[in-house]
């Protein structure tokens, strides 16, 4: 059964009832509670791991929920919980959050990998910052992601090693698309500057190196995401990281050109094909284009070839397998509005009588209005 999360009067959210699919997408204007929802989900899925990690790094919340929320979600976030009003239910069980964050948990294993929206901040001078490099008021999700990238680079890559492309990381077809979208003419490399290791882009011909600060905004945004995908797709016969079932990617599209977004969405389909349950938050019509297309293709019994056409991917057997699995996944889309309610708009029907669903939670509303105004102007211009 698909897991269900219910939130009441938490932060900006007055009521949310979310049933997660294999792929779940949260949309809505800024500051409507999408990120809080995903971070609370992480807390519920990985309670023992989160508490033990915070303690391991010396963070103390004196057993108080409000102090815990400042430590876990970030400074000032204790206000999201209103005693006597806020409530949370996970997989049908009503939880007392104050008890959840004080009880000792037997299991400390981790089941969710969280890629936060602030991921670009995790690389300083081209190398991931350790957990302890952050302020105690910084969100746990950012600090933990940063630490994971640091360990990945330090434990799985040697000094002065090529990071991208790598033969045993990602599918060849995806690597080719990524090279075209993100690193044309360059390789991503681990380099040593004096005694400091750092990531650089290495010109394939001139052998010149570009340090982190001169990369394009899209490259700076994408590299932490790429490292996250590397972490999730180990170069072994095992297709998943042990115990990890969930992947959250906040604002996957940040800083990326639409072509780059589509390659990244193809990588999301690969995560699904490896059996991960994926949650995204987005402001991008391209992400919803993919969800809508997959659902429509599935409803019309289209084959994997049509899925690969969307991404202009080579039609090899491994890619067909990824596409075939994508067609079999359940997908959910939820809209967070400014009034605090959360609507299921999973059908994404462009002709729905529900304007929120037809406008994909406001994401295509502007394009629709532009089209309407332009069509009227063209008609009026024809009469003049």
């Amino acid at each position: 059964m698909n897991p269900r999360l219910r939130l009441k009067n938490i932060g900006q959210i007055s009521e949310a009832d979310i049933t997660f699919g294999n792929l779940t997408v949260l949309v809505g204007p800024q500051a409507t509670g999408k990120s809080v929802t995903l971070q609370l989900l992480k807390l519920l899925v990985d309670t023992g791991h989160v508490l033990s990690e915070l303690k391991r790094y010396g963070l103390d919340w004196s057993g108080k929920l409000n102090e815990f929320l400042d430590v876990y979600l970030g400074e000032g976030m204790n206000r999201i919980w209103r005693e006597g009003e806020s409530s949370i239910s996970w997989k049908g069980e009503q939880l007392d959050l104050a008890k959840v964050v004080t009880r000792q948990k037997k299991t400390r294993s981790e089941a969710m990998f969280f890629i936060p929206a602030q991921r670009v901040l995790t690389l300083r001078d081209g190398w991931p910052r350790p957990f302890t490099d952050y302020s105690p008021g910084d969100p746990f999700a950012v600090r933990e992601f940063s630490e994971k990238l640091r360990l990945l680079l330090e434990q799985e890559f040697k000094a002065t090693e090529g990071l991208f492309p790598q033969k045993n990381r990602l599918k060849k077809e995806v690597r080719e698309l990524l090279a075209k979208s993100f690193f044309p003419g360059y390789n991503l490399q681990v380099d040593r500057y004096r005694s400091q290791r750092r990531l650089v882009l290495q010109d394939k011909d001139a052998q010149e190196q570009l340090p982190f600060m001169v990369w394009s905004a899209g490259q700076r945004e994408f590299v932490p995401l790429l490292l996250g995908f590397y972490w999730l797709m180990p170069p072994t016969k095992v297709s998943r990281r042990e115990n990890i079932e969930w992947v959250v990617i906040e604002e996957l599209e940040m800083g990326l050109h639409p072509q780059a977004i589509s390659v990244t969405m193809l990588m999301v389909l690969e995560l699904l094909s490896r059996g991960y349950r994926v949650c995204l938050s987005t402001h991008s019509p391209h992400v919803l284009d993919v969800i809508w297309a997959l659902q429509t293709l599935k409803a019309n019994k289209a084959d994997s070839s049509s899925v690969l056409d969307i991404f202009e991917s080579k039609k090899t057997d491994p890619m067909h397998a990824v596409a075939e699995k994508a067609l079999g996944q359940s997908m959910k889309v939820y809209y967070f509005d400014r009034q605090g309610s959360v609507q299921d708009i999973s059908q994404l029907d462009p002709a729905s009588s529900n304007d929120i669903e037809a406008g994909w939670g406001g994401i295509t509303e502007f394009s629709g209005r532009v089209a309407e105004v332009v069509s009227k102007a063209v008609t009026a211009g024809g009469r003049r």
Partner: protein
Amino acid sequence: MTFEEAVRNCPAIADALQPGLQALRHTDKSYITCAKPRLLSGSVDLDSTLSAELPNASRWDYGVGVRCPQTDDKVIWVEIHPASSTSEIKSVLAKLKWLKDWLAENAPELFARSGDYVWVASGAVAFPASSPQRRQLAAAGLQFAGRRYEIQTT
């Protein structure tokens, strides 16, 4: 000039004028609505009326007259057509071209009063608002209304 007068002045469709939205075929009635039908000055079914005379033409479906205070009536042209494939765009744009050419030649008074040109989808829709196909329609001056069109009256 009223919509009724303009239709009467066009011999090819003069007898097809119907009050309100009564020109709509039974199967199409659910696609077009109006909250204030008394502000409609009538409707014509171009497709059925001209089918014998122009059997091979890309005929447009309906024209609806809307009363405008202190000025001539406005005509809304509505086509009810599948939108389940992007290939339908080509046929609806062909219909739009036919309509404008036909109006210019046969019904200049109606043409001069043309307000909006609207495509209502008769089923599933294959192109979202952000798609280039929707921009193609806008550039041709065609509004896409989804599966239901509510005629706005003033």
